[in-house]
């Protein structure tokens, strides 16, 4: 198992995802002899997990669920939140707009759920340079990369990107910024990027941050500066029954139609979709730009 390569059977030391129900997803570190408590009961790693196929059903005392192979998308939903994270919708858009693919060299500041998605996309020949200014978080994230068997693809640096940059020069195809003052990092981003150019993305919740960042990008000679936001709408599939009104017996019907026939078709059942009462209305603005050849 790794976050960048599929395998078929669960092994000791893997990170597996327990799919308990829709929106209830739990990561578990598989260990010989260990046990994990779930709402359906206890699972014993040695018998229930190790040696089983990914995708298998696990039965407990109070119910059952499936064990899934980890993916960055499942990890995003399952991971223990340390800071506000990026969700799959933004991650997917960023991945395409930064033109990430196997072999890409990426610099990122603000490590988290996006890191795993980047690693999955740039493997096996790319590299991610990630900068985290909070020491504890930097250590935790380095540990996770190792557990997820992706550490060979990433270098974690514990420093302040606005002061010290990314720690590399002229190597990046893409740069991603998820920090409070991205305009202070734009110059450093330019330095880290390849001479023949590359793509940059900055994620900011506030429009004032976006304005300052766009100004900085323009000053530094970036082109194609554009700001977009993407939002996900999830449709709930339902079967609903709509009652039909009773306007009384139809005077134009023939005598063959018995009055008792009316209650038979009292409602119409149909398959439809509805939207939730509330939906996420804003995550952040995504500003993209191209660094031209310098």
């Amino acid at each position: 198992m790794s976050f960048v390569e599929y395998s078929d059977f669960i092994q000791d030391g893997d990170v597996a995802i327990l799919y308990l129900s829709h929106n209830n997803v739990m990561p578990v570190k598989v260990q010989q002899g260990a046990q994990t408590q779930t709402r359906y009961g206890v699972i014993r790693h040695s018998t229930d997990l190790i040696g089983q196929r990914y995708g298998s059903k696990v039965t407990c005392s109070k119910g059952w669920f499936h064990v899934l192979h980890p993916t960055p998308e499942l990890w995003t939903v399952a991971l223990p939140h340390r800071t506000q994270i990026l969700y799959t919708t933004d991650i997917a858009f960023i991945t395409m707009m930064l033109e990430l693919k196997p072999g890409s060299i990426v610099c990122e500041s603000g490590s988290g759920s996006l890191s795993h998605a980047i690693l999955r996309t740039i493997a096996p020949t790319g590299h991610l340079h990630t900068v985290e200014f909070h020491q504890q978080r930097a250590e935790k994230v380095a540990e996770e990369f190792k557990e997820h068997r992706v550490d060979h693809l990433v270098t974690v640096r514990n420093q302040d990107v606005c002061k010290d940059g990314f720690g590399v020069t002229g190597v990046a195809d893409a740069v991603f910024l998820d920090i409070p003052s991205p305009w202070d990092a734009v110059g450093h981003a330019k330095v880290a990027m390849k001479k023949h150019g590359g793509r940059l993305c900055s994620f900011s919740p506030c429009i004032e941050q976006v304005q300052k960042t766009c100004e900085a990008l323009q000053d530094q000679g970036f082109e194609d500066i554009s700001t977009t936001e993407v939002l996900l709408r999830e449709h709930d599939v339902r079967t609903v029954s709509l009652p039909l009104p009773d306007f009384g017996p139809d005077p134009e019907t023939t005598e063959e139609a018995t009055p008792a026939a009316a209650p038979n078709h009292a409602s119409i059942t149909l398959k439809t979709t509805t939207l939730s009462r509330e939906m996420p209305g804003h995550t952040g603005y995504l500003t993209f730009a191209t660094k031209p050849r310098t």
Partner: protein
Amino acid sequence: MSNQPITGKKVIFEKQWIFLDNAVGQLYSTTFEILSGGNLKPHELKDSASPLDAVEAGTDNRNIVDDGKSQKLTRDDIEALKEKGLKGQDIIKKLVDNHATFGDKTEYSQVKYIKKKKKKYENTVMILKPSCRILAMMYHGREPGKICHLRYDTLAQMLTLANIHAGSKVLVFETCAGLVLGSIMERMGGYGSVIQMYPGGGPVRAGVESFGFPAHFHDTLHEFPICHVNALLAGTLDTSAKDPTAENTDEKQLNLAAEKEQNQPEAEEQGTPEEESMETNTGDDAGQDVEKTEKDKLKEAKAQVKKLRLEEKQRRLAATAALLKGRNADGLVIASRFHPCPVLLGLLKFLSPSRPFVVYSQYIEPLVECFKKLRECGGTVNLRLTDTWMRHYQVLPDRTHPLLLMSGGGGYLLSGTTVATDHSKPAGSKQAEEPAPKRQKLEDTEG
């Protein structure tokens, strides 16, 4: 926007004919000026004399009357300037100089005016290196009908939800001119394999060419006709025998040709020295005989080529069938004009458990059906029916706002993950993942 560089050819773009020859050898993202006659010349950025230098600006438009008489230059005047060979920037300067109320406009209004004129009069084109991003935006902007109106952010979601990455084995069924296929190939970087399941006579891949992949990427691309899917699943597909489908007539000809070859080996061998002696003869009779054997030779050669091609096709079919037979694909992506339900149900069988699938549809109802069917059959979890909302912004000091027009819709996605199929328990026994009816009633009365 992008184009495929082809030397020696003329291409039409935005109502202009352009020769791309002078672009060859230049770097991507170079801006070119289009000279009269259609040739390209690398554009030199002249920062000198912006049309706004030394022009005053007003504070508001209270005294500006829109009577259409502000511009002193007529259309004919401008045409004359164009014919004289005046550059775009200079034409704009002339327009500004001859504009009666330009100095009354606010600074913002002046900038907007210049921007508009630049778009109209500056004759430049930038040649970009193709990528999924650029091609997806281009197709959606210019030829959405060819790609089932798949908006590029929806495509981005598909690639991520299906966990497309190097080294996996992905099944694709698409009628989007090859855009989806090419995008998947880009994200696989030449590692792993992509199997295009195709309806009809042959796989459509025009869009893939636009990506400009290195040759070895094509080694990872396979194809399989869906008309053989049932046979493959049932284990009755015979990939060793001659292809029983549309090639019947060709097959007959092939057989005939093959027979002919078999019946004539001696004649052939004799024929060769005979032919040689005939060729040296200049008599009419001899000439006619030579023609005949020449014709036969050509027929045989053609039949031979056909035979080889058919064998190659058979070989490829067998190889692809072998890839599919194990039913261990890592991902499935569907984006077509076909009803997604049967396509999905048919192709899901080829996936390993715990693998993602994504189905795109321009319309939501077919996906609702898919959703219901999957619930009934079991074997999938984490089903989501989604669409994305996308909005662009203009970011300028004191003029930041969303753009006035936005895309109405980009299509819908149904995504999920396969799980090991459980044959002992019926799917309905698990608590429904949809909310209980009680909650639903409440919502209905609230509305």
